[in-house]
Structure formats: C-alpha cells, structure tokens
C-alpha cells in the first residue's frame, strides 16, 4: 500500500488545529507558531504532491478510497486532478501567508489568538477535503461544515458590525446548503433507482438522468454554489463579510474558501448534469456578465476599502463563472486558472489594505491620501496588488482573464464583449482607489506612517512574486488544468468551436496546434 | 347488552376529563382530570378487548395504569415543588415558558 499522501495533506492542518487549540491560554505566540508551523508543513506536503502533477515526477500520489458509510455507498474518496490541484496548491499556499498576516489581528480585537489560528487550520483542512473529495456526500458535509469555523472567525474577530455580517454569511450559505442537501439526496435517489446506491462521483457521473430531474438537481447544486461563489444576485453577504471580517480572514474567505463554490460548478455540476448545464448555460452566462459589470460598478461607488475589494471579488467571480459556463476549453481552463490567480491577487489586496487599516485605524478611503510619501514600499506593494487585480499583463491574472474572455467569445460573443467592459471598470476602481489613498498631498493623519516591516514584506512578497512568475510561466499549471478540463467538457457533450479559417494544414505545427 | 354503550360512556368520560383540564386552574384538579381521561381510554381498551376476544387490550390498559402511576408520582412531586416556591397550585401562575 502506498503512502496516503492526500489524507496526510488533510490530516496535517486538522492535527495542527487540535494542537493549536491545546496550547495553554495565554501562550498566544506559541499557538501562532504551532499553527503557522503546521500550515508550512502542509505547504511542503502540498508542494511535493504538486510536483508530480506539474512536472511529471512520480511521487506516489494515488487516489484514495476508504469505507465511510458503506450502507449508503459513501466513502472517504480522494483524488487529485488538474482542477483540484490548482486549488489545493492555492489553499496550501495561502494558509501560511494568511496565518502570518493575521499575526496581530486577534490581539487588536482583544481576543485570544489561539482560537483564531486553530479555526483557520480547520477551514484549511475542510477546504482541502472539499477540493480533493470524490464523494458527493463527503463534499456536501465539508461544504457545510466549513461555514461553522468561518462563522466564528467572522463573528468573533471582526469589526463593529461583525455579528450581523457573520449571521448574514451563515444564513445565506445555509440556504444554499439546504438546496444542495435536497439535490444531494435527489442524486442519491437516482443512483438507488439505477440499482447501485453510491455517492462516488464517477459512479454518479456515469448515471443517465433524465433532463427534467437534471434540471431540479442542477438548480439545487447551482444555488448553493452561486451563493458561495457569489453570483449576482446572491452576493450581498460578501461585501458585509469582507468589510467586517479581519483583513486576513476576508482574504482567506474570498480568496480561498469561496473557491469551493466555483470548484463545485466545474467539478461537480458540469459532469453531473451535462444536459441541464448546457441548457442553463446562457442564463448563467448572463448572470455572470451582470456580476462582472455590477460588481465593478459598485466597487467604484464604495467608500470603504474592504467593501470595495469585496465588490471587486464579485466582479472577478463573475469572470470565473462566465468561463465555466462558456463551455469551451480556453474559457474553462482560464476560469480554473483564474480561481488561483484571483486567490493570490485578492489575498494580496486584502492583506495590504489590512496593513493600511491597521496603521491608520480606519477603513474609509477618504481618511487616506498621499501615503506613498511616508510609506513608499507600502504604496508600491499596494499598486502591484492592485495591478494584479485589474489583470495587467504579464501578471498571471491577465492570462486567465484573457482566456475567459476569448473562450467566451467563441460561443457567446455579446456576453464576451460586455464582459470586456470589465477590464475598463477594473482599471477605474483600482486606480481611483490608489489615487485617492496613495497619491496627492500628504494628509496630516498619514504623516509618519511607518513603512512595511519585515514580517509584512514576508507576507506579501511571495504572493507578488508568484503572480509575476506564474504570469510569465503559466504553462505547467495551465497544462495540468487543461488536461483535467477537457474530459469535463467531453462529459458535458459540447464541441470546441473550430476556427473559422484554420491555419493551413502544414502551418499547424508551427503554431503548436 | 351492546358493548358500544361502554364506548359511548368512555367518550363522555374522556370529554369531561378534557374539559376539566381545559377549564380548571387548580393543578391538582387538572391532573385528576388527566387521570380521568386515561381511565376513559382504559375503559375503551377493556371494552375492545372483550369485543374482539383479544387480551391485548387489557394488557395495554394495565400498562396505562402503571405508567399513570409513575406519572402521578412525578407530577405530584412537581406540583409540591412548585407550591413550595410559589405558594400557589394554579397552573396559570406557572407561565414562564414563553418568549
């Protein structure tokens, strides 16, 4: 029997959470160190696993299946494919960074940091399980379980309105989860009727469900994911949560945890309900485009920096959903790639804004101005993160956004053209934010604002470096994603649109087609 | 004699017991009314047992009695406890179970 890499990957943060929780109260620093240590350990294991997929080195990572509830056909089934690889990599990478960035956040709220860090690791373990799970019931359970630690993280450590935001977050996602539970049961009933009760994803994908039933189940799953992702008009919990949670928590929430929603769309919804997905795609595409434009316009209209970033996330999630439901290879690869890049970029933005807020004690844009003078490094990092948010090449966000737009253009031209407006709007909200906070005459309140400290540089530098490096050399990752996306699209039964005037036969090699 | 009469009597006793529960405020009386309702049900059980020639009805009645005994013990203990603290045996006074 080979080494259970994937289970280890999940078990490490879970163990870390327990150990962090066991640290005696009052030894806050020790708890933080334990938590960060385990997050880093997970990162190492995750990196080892990724190597196998990115660079074709056999590390002995294999799908794992252990019995869980054999009566229902539910199992602890884990597997890693290109899509989940991207998101697992994002998760293991983001956690230590977020852990480092939230070093002082709990103390700022006069609370014990122990629980905060333990909860973060719990969320990491659950998120990893969701990304790796090959069992629909297991996925559902972790999908729902994730809400609880996040609820406490928002509700205990956030801003003045944190309770409201936490309850809103919980209720929204529970509504979605309820719909999904119904659909999961419905799906199970289908498998029972087919004679082989199972929650195992490949088994369920192999089912032949009639279109009407598919529609109902599709709506159930999609509602949950659309709320999680979040898609217009189910988005209003995110700005509140983003504004009220601590910056690092908001970063992890919208950067990593919410990706479970979009992951569910591409990894569960598309293969499970191909007919319904095909039929519903135009509707979802319209919603996604509305999200893109609406989120961007609202971001422009915000005065609260964290809320603003929350709305930009809605816009970006719109791009991701658009890419998934455009049902073309480029768009789907781009969308998955986008999930990773958006994670990196949003975390960077939230974290940097967190530094700013911590220094000034205010989230309002108007309270800043001319920060670049006292804190040029901070301003530079802020601009860099912002540019990644507006998808400036060669940062990795650009390629994903371009792939989504061009992939959508293949099938839904008006949608793609409207979505392109998003690139103008994103420039507006990011640069306007930068202009109002960083440039102009130095405000008295920001005079003497300290520049970045070593810890803060250590938090942001890897993110920015990754955005740049992945932006220049995206191929290993996009190849892995592309490989996994292709079967999904085949499952949905859509054809990749062929070029109208393809490159002549003998020229094809030259362009790598 | 037509055994249905017993059943009608049972219905009447049950209804009277129910009205006692609903109308009387004295916890003890209300409690006794509950006992009356149980007894009415028992009568129906016994009647059915005889009517269908099956002893199970009597067994059920027996268990009802035993359970009623247990219930009375606990119920009376509660009434006594409440009376001790509130100096009242009115069911309306114990109305804290609300929002």
């Amino acid at each position, binding site marked *: 029997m080979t080494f259970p890499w994937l289970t280890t990957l999940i078990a490490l943060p879970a163990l870390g959470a327990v150990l962090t929780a066991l640290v005696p109260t009052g030894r806050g620093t020790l708890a933080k160190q334990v938590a960060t240590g385990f997050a880093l350990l997970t990162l190492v294991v995750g990196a080892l696993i990724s190597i196998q997929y990115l660079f074709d080195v056999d590390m002995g990572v294999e799908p794992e299946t252990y019995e869980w509830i054999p009566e229902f056909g539910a199992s602890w089934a884990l597997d890693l494919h290109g899509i989940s690889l991207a998101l697992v990599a994002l998760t293991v990478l983001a956690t230590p960074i977020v852990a480092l960035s939230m070093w002082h956040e709990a103390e700022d709220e006069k609370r014990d940091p122990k629980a905060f860090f333990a909860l973060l690791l719990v969320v990491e373990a659950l998120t990893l399980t969701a990304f790796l799970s090959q069992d629909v019931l297991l996925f559902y359970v972790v999908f729902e379980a994730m809400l609880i630690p996040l609820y406490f993280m928002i509700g205990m450590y956030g801003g003045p309105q944190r309770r409201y935001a936490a309850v809103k977050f919980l209720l929204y996602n529970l509504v979605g989860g309820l719909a999904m539970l119904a659909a999961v049961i419905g799906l199970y009933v289908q498998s029972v009727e087919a004679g082989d009760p199972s929650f195992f994803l490949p088994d369920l994908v192999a089912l032949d469900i009639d279109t009407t039933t598919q529609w109902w189940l599709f709506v159930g799953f999609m509602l949950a994911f659309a709320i999680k992702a979040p898609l217009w008009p189910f988005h209003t919990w995110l700005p509140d949560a983003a504004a009220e949670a601590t910056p690092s928590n908001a970063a992890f929430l919208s950067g990593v945890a919410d990706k479970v929603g979009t992951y569910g769309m591409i990894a569960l919804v598309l293969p499970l309900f191909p007919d319904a997905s095909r039929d519903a795609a135009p509707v979802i595409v319209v919603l996604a485009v509305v999200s893109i434009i609406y989120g961007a316009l609202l971001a422009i209209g915000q005065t609260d920096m964290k809320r603003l970033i929350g709305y930009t996330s809605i816009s970006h999630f719109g791009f991701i959903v658009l890419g998934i439901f455009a049902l073309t290879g480029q768009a789907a690869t781009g969308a998955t790639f986008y999930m990773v890049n958006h994670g990196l970029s949003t975390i960077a933005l939230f974290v940097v804004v967190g530094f700013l807020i911590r220094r000034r004690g205010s989230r309002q844009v108007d309270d800043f101005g001319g920060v670049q003078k006292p804190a040029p490094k901070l301003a530079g990092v802020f601009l860099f993160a912002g540019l990644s948010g507006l998808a400036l090449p060669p940062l990795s966000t650009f390629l994903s956004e371009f792939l989504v737009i061009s992939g959508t253009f293949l099938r839904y031209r008006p949608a793609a053209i409207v979505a392109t407006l998003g690139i103008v709007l994103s420039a507006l909200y990011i640069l306007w934010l930068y202009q109002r906070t960083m440039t102009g005459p130095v405000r008295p309140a920001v005079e003497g604002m300290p520049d970045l400290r070593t810890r803060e540089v250590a938090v942001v530098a890897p993110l920015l470096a990754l955005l740049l490096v992945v932006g220049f050399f995206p191929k290993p990752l996009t190849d892995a994603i592309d490989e996994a996306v292709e079967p999904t699209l085949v499952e949905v039964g859509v054809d990749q649109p062929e070029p109208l005037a393809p490159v002549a036969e003998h020229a094809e090699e030259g362009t790598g087609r | 004699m037509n055994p249905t009469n017993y059943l009608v009597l049972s219905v009447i006793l*049950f209804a009277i017991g129910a009205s006692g529960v609903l109308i009387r405020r004295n916890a003890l009386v209300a409690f006794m009314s509950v006992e009356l309702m149980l007894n009415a049900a028992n009568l129906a059980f016994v009647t059915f047992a005889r009517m269908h020639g099956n*002893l199970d009805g009597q067994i059920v009645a027996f268990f009802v009695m035993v359970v009623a005994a247990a219930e009375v013990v606990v119920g009376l203990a509660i009434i006594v406890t409440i009376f001790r603290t509130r100096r009242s045996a009115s069911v309306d006074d114990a109305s804290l179970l609300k929002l």
Partner: protein
Amino acid sequence: MGEAALFWIMAPIAVLGALGLVFSRKAVHGALCLAATMVSLALFYIAQEAPFLGVVQIVVYTGAIMMLFLFVIMLVGVDSSDSRVETIRGQRVAATLAILGVVLLLSAVTIRATLPEEPAGLAQASPDGNVPAIADLIFGTYFWAFEVVAALLITAAVGAMTLTHRERIFHRPTQKELSIKRFSEGPPEEAAGLPVPGVYARHNAVDTPALLPDGTPSEASINRVLVARGAARSSDEFRHHPTPADVEAAAEGETDEPAGQIGADDDARGGERA
C-alpha cells in the same frame, strides 16, 4: 341482563363523579368524586371479564393514586377552593368548541364504526382464567415492555424524591438550642412551650385556636402555615363577646360557654384564592 342493570346504574354514577370532579370548587371534593368514578369503572372492568384489571384499578388507582392525591391536597391545603372567573381570554369558548368538536367526532367514529353487536368474549383467549392469561402475556409477549415500565417506575420514584428533596442550607437547631433560645429571647409566658391547638375549644382540630384559661383564644396555638394559607379558623369566632344575657348570667354568677358565630358557612370562611 345483570350487566345491563349494572351498567345503567353505575354509568350515571361514573358520569356524575366525573362532572363532580370538574365542577367541584374544592379539590378534595373533586378527588372523592373521582374515586367514585374509578370504583364504578372497576366494576365495569370486572363486568367485562377483566377481573384482574378491576382489582388493580381499585388497589392501584383508588387505593394508591387517589390517596397520593389526597395527601398532596392536604399538603397544599384541603380547604382552598378555586375561583370560577376565567382569566385567559377566550379560553372557555375555545375549550367548549374543542371539546364539542372532539365529542362529536369521537361519537361519529364510535357510531359509524361497524362493531359486533355481541362481544366475542374472552373465553377463548383465556382458557385458564383471566389472571394466568394476562400473566402469560405480560411475561411473554410484553416482557420487554414490562421491564421498561418497571424501570420507569423506579425512575419516577427516584425522580419524585429528588424533586421534593430540599437541601438543608442552615444548621438545624437542636431541641436544646431551641429551649435555650426560648428562655433567653422569647416572652416568659411562652417559655414552657406554645399552647396546643384545640385545647378547651369546642373542636380539637388543628385549625381551631386553643382557649386560654381566661377564655380568650390564643393565636399562637395555630400553625403559622395554616394562618398564612387562610385555612385557620379566625380566633374572633371564639372570643367571648358578652351579650346582655351574658351580663345577666354573669351577674347570676354562672359561667357559660363563650358564644360566637358558630356554624357559619365553611365556604364563606375559606380564604378565596384568586
């Protein structure tokens, strides 16, 4: 024929007893009415080939449960009686409607049901008599239920004890301490102990105050709890109110029993409980 007679005699008694329970203002009367109903039900059981249940009914219900009720009634106050004023708005109407509805429905069920005219009888089901047959069932088919019920009874007993048990928080004064306290703190006339209720009075019940040698009733002879509950007889009714005739008699050197408003209605004296 005999059964019909029994039924038609005992059924009205049962119904009357039930009505008595509901309409009596004093709980103790209600309890007695209920006992009557239960006894009549016991007779019905016996009449319906359930002698075991009939006996159990009398022993357990009438004998044990009703006695328990009576004890509690005494504990709570045997005299207290209820007000007839309904305090919950709409309760009476709702209750009447609900009861009428249930009666109608149950009657409808009973009448509509196709029931055998003649009962099948239990001869076949209990060849060796009622008690062995029931024993067979209880210790056979229903053994598990029986055991559970047994456990339930034990639990109930323990529960009742726990509920009514009071933890003693303060040191309980010993007799010696009480005696010392009486001499050191109390009025000297109480040093030898309080007068016992009913002494020299016309009744020797606990709610009747004792008469002191000079003929005045002693408030101190009655238990405080009874006074608080309003269950004690007013000492006023025993106080000597000299009438002209008394004065005359006194002049004659005769002493007579103190005259008072004896025989006033019990109900009127009982404290109304809101």
